[in-house]
Structure formats: C-alpha cells, structure tokens
C-alpha cells in the first residue's frame, strides 16, 4: 500500500493514526455556534492569503501548494454551502492547508468570478435570469474543474418543481441543472450533499492537482465514478433504482438506497426497494449510494488506509 503511505507523508509529514480519536462533537449548544465562527474565519483567511498567493514559496507548511477554490451560487438554498461549513474545524483545516477560497458570495468579498482550480457550483441555473446564465458560462471559462455541488446543480432536484409566478420575479420559472448549459467534471449528488462527501472530494481534488503520480492515480480512481455521473446526464429520480439496478438484475437488497433518501421516499418491502414516486425530489442520492450503481474494488478495498489518510489530513 505504497500509495497511501506516501499520501500520508505528503498530507502531514509525520503520521499519526489516532484510532481511538474521540468523537469531536461538542454538545449540541456548542455545535450550533460553530458555523458562525466558520463564517467569519474564511474571510480572514482570504484577506491574508491575497498577499501570500502572489508571493511564491511560503512558510514552513508541510503542504506544497494550495489549490484555489470558489463557491458559485446559482439557484440553490445555500444548504450545500452550509453542509460544507458543517465540517466545522475540518473546513478551517481545508482552507488553512489545502485550498484558498477565492470566490464565495457569502464568505469572501470578491464580486466577479476569478480564475480558479475548482469551482463548486451550488444550485441550478434560471435561464430567465441572464446574469445567472452569464455567470455559469464564466465559471466554466475560469475554472479548471467544475464540480456540481449538490442535487440542484447536478439534477435540478427541488428546483425541477418550480412553476414560476412567484414574488418578486414571476418570470423565473425554468431551472436547469448546470450540466445542461456547460460541461461539468464532477457530481456530488444529494440534498444536501453531506459534509463528509464534500470533504472527501476536496482532499481528492487537491491530490489530483498537487499530488505526486501515485496520489494522482488514487485521486483519479476515487473521483472517476463521480466524473462518470457527470457524464451520465442531468436527470435523476428514485426510478433509477428500478431502471438501472433492479431491472438490470443487480439489486441484492442491502437497503442503502432507502437509508440515503432524504425524504424517506424509499422503503424496503420483501427485501427490495419500493419507491414512493410522488415523494421523490429527484436528488440522485439513492442511486449514487447504491453499491450496485458503481463500485470500484481498487478504491474500496483500500478503505481503511484512505479513511485514515483523510482523517489525518483533517487534523489541524
């Protein structure tokens, strides 16, 4: 498992796998205040980074170089960004060690979409809003990797149900997943996408761009299924469980799809998923979670080492 050893050294130099790492959750009250701190911190980070980004080789950080990341807000509820922030101190670690947040309307004072390595796009695009259309095109031009963050950007999700006529933009009624307008590289489905899934993609994107050859290979293998989802299209539904898994003779009744569904649209009847189709919000979580949608032995067989490495990478 040479890949992972070197991955660990790259990520933190000295390696310490704290197996019994006590659950870092403070009591609920304390948790609630976390995002507030988080919301202030990155802004600070950016300000001081602005100078250091332009300068070359920096301090004595064990990490070679950071990547630049932006959060592009289309028609979404900010839940995806909140989910990213719900990594709590992990978010600070990501921003401290691996990524500079160069664009984020909520957290960073930058008005126009700059050049960046990774654009995390939240929300679908309202095509009656010309500014939104311009911005998504701009995003594609300026970002090396475009990630559809969350189900609205990937599949339309809840915005599929919009019918227009609402205050104060009654003409805003047509919302497209970003993949209908631009090429998208990676999907992170789910409503909301989970903090841990976002975290894992961030670490892997970092390795893909800044790692050595072995690390690039691992990150590539990890990200491939999420890239394939991006190639597969912009429609998702609980029906995918029927058409792509059961109808294909692949379902073995594990129940992961039911666990993943955020609206409890899936129940298990006699060992197979039963989808309440009217409840489905078209988030794509069920299909992506199913071990029979995609499963890479190369990646999953190394789960222990990968998880240790990600854990380690998240240490402040």
């Amino acid at each position: 498992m040479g890949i992972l050893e070197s991955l660990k050294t790259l990520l933190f130099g000295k390696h310490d796998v704290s197996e019994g790492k006590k659950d870092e959750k403070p009591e609920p009250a304390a948790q609630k205040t976390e995002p507030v701190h988080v919301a202030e911190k990155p802004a600070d980070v950016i300000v001081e980074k602005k100078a250091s980004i332009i300068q070359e080789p920096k301090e004595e950080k064990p990490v070679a170089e950071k990547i630049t990341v932006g959060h592009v807000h289309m028609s979404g509820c900010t839940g995806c960004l909140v989910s990213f922030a719900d990594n709590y101190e992990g978010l600070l670690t990501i921003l401290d060690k691996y990524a500079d947040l160069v664009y984020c309307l909520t957290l960073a004072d930058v008005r126009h979409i700059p050049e960046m390595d990774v654009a995390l796009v939240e929300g679908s695009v309202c095509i009656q809003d010309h500014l939104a259309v311009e911005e998504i095109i701009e995003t594609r031009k300026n970002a090396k990797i475009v990630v559809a963050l969350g189900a609205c950007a990937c599949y339309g999700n809840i915005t599929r149900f919009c019918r227009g006529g609402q205050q104060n933009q009654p003409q805003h009624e047509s919302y497209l997943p970003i993949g209908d307008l631009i090429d998208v590289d990676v999907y992170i489905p789910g409503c909301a996408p989970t903090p841990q899934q976002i975290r894992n993609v961030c670490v892997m994107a970092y390795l893909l761009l800044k790692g050595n050859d072995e690390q690039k290979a691992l990150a590539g293998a990890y990200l491939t299924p999420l890239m394939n989802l991006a190639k597969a299209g912009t429609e998702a539904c609980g029906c995918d469980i029927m058409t792509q898994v059961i109808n294909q003779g692949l379902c073995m009744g594990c129940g992961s799809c039911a666990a993943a569904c955020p609206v409890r649209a899936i129940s298990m009847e006699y060992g197979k998923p039963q989808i309440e189709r009217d409840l489905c919000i078209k988030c794509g979580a069920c299909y992506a979670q199913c071990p029979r949608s995609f499963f890479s032995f190369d990646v999953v067989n190394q789960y222990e080492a990968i998880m240790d490495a990600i854990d380690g990478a998240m240490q402040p």
Partner: protein
Amino acid sequence: MVLGNYKQVVAARSTDPEILRGSQDGGIVTQLFAYALDAGIIDGAIVAGPSDEPFKPEPMVATTREELMASRGTRYSISPNMELIKEVTRSYGLDKVGIVGTPCQMQAIRKGQLYPVGLRDVPDKIALAIGIFCMENFPYQGILQLVEDHGATKIDNVRKLDIGKGKFWIHTERGATVDLPLKITHKYEQPGCHVCLDYVANLADISTGSVGTPDGWSTIFVRSAKGDDIWAKAIAAGAFETKPIESVKPGIDLVTKLATDKITKNQKYLESRATEYGVGKALRNPYI
C-alpha cells in the same frame, strides 16, 4: 485474493452456552456484539431480527443482550440491514454502531464510508462491522416455496434452516429433518447474487461463517486494525474458545475452494452479460 486481506484466520466458538444454544454456528456474531456492548465498544448493533412472518428477517437495532439473543441464527432471506444505517445514528442516537451483514452489505457500508452521498455523519460512527460468509440469498417468497412446496413442511413448524454439506436443511420443532439438494434451490436465489464477487466478507472488520470448521464451530477472519483490536480484547476477556485453523477439519482449503468457485462462476456470468443478451447491447456492469 479470493479470501481478501486478513490478519489472522482461526476456528472459534462462544464460551457462553446460552448464546450457543440459539445461534447458527459458533455464536460468533452474537458473542462479539454482546462483548462489544458490555465493553462500551458499541452502543448497539444493526442485526437481522425476527418479524411477523417466520424466518423472514427484519432489520433491527439491538441495544441490549436480550435483543441480541432474539436475533441469533441465520435467516436465509434478505435482511436490508443498511436500511437502518442512518436512522441508527438519528432516532436511536447511537454514536458507536455495530452492524452485521452479508459480504454485499459490507461492500455497501465501505462504499458508504468513502462515498457518503446520502449518509451524513454516518462514516465516522461505524465501530464494528461483522461480515458473514454468503454464497447466495433468497427472496422470502423463495424460502416459502422451498420449505412448504419442495420440503412439504409448514414454515410455522420449522426450528432451523441451514445450508451445508451440499444441502438445504429444514429442521422442524418436532425433530424431523428434511433435506433438499442445492440443485433445487438455485432457481430461488435472488438474481443480484449472481454478480457477487465476494464470499467471505472481505471488507468486514471481522468475518465469520461455518465453512471450514466442524459443526458448532466457526471460521473467523480478523481483517482490519479495528477488528484486530476488538478480537484481541474479546479473547482476553474469555469470550471465545479458539483452535488453530490448521487443526480442524475440513479446514481453510474448503473455504478457498468455495470462494474460488463462487467468484469464478459469477465473474463468468458478469462477462456474459456484456454480450449474451442480444445484438450489441450490454447489461450494466457495476464494477468499474
């Protein structure tokens, strides 16, 4: 590689006669969870509990020894244990989760940890995943047909179902035994099992099954660092009686043979799906 990565393989059985009485083989699963619960390693475990219908499993969260006892024994039908993996951390409030499952369910849990698309805050809470060997599984309707039609036995009268020594065994409450050749059972297997490439739960922390060891004993693979730690502690606590696997019959070779047979057969089927079904149309292969 058909047996996956493991740190050690050993023959064992529980030292608790009460557990052994109702368990399928060496009572490994129930004993391990009971020990882990006592030792505070887990807060509870997702197991295949009983349901309203005999031998139809229903996933359940066991947080007491009594509940674990109620889940002893194999039910040869689909128990979607992953269905509860998020709920167990929510309404049940568990922070350290145990789960038992077939090899495919162990795959589901590890994929879920690496790609927690819809499993917020779950990945870090898996404290002990126990895998059970598995050649195939049956929809409940299939079990009913095997027992009631082929076996001519009312399912309410069945005490234990077992697959071993090339046969499907039906043991009734009144002591009668019916056996069916496995040839008959094949058509009742669920189709999803035919693309399955894992026999001995390669991705579990600890996996166990009956094959390889004498009746009443189990074969155990200790796999992950976590599994290794828990197994050592359980042994130190006197939870298990063990024997070197080399000292028992039929031994590890049979496990290797069955694993190889299963994987070879299913690999071939997977490949045939790419061509067999018509003109240039392939069925989907989930393994990339």
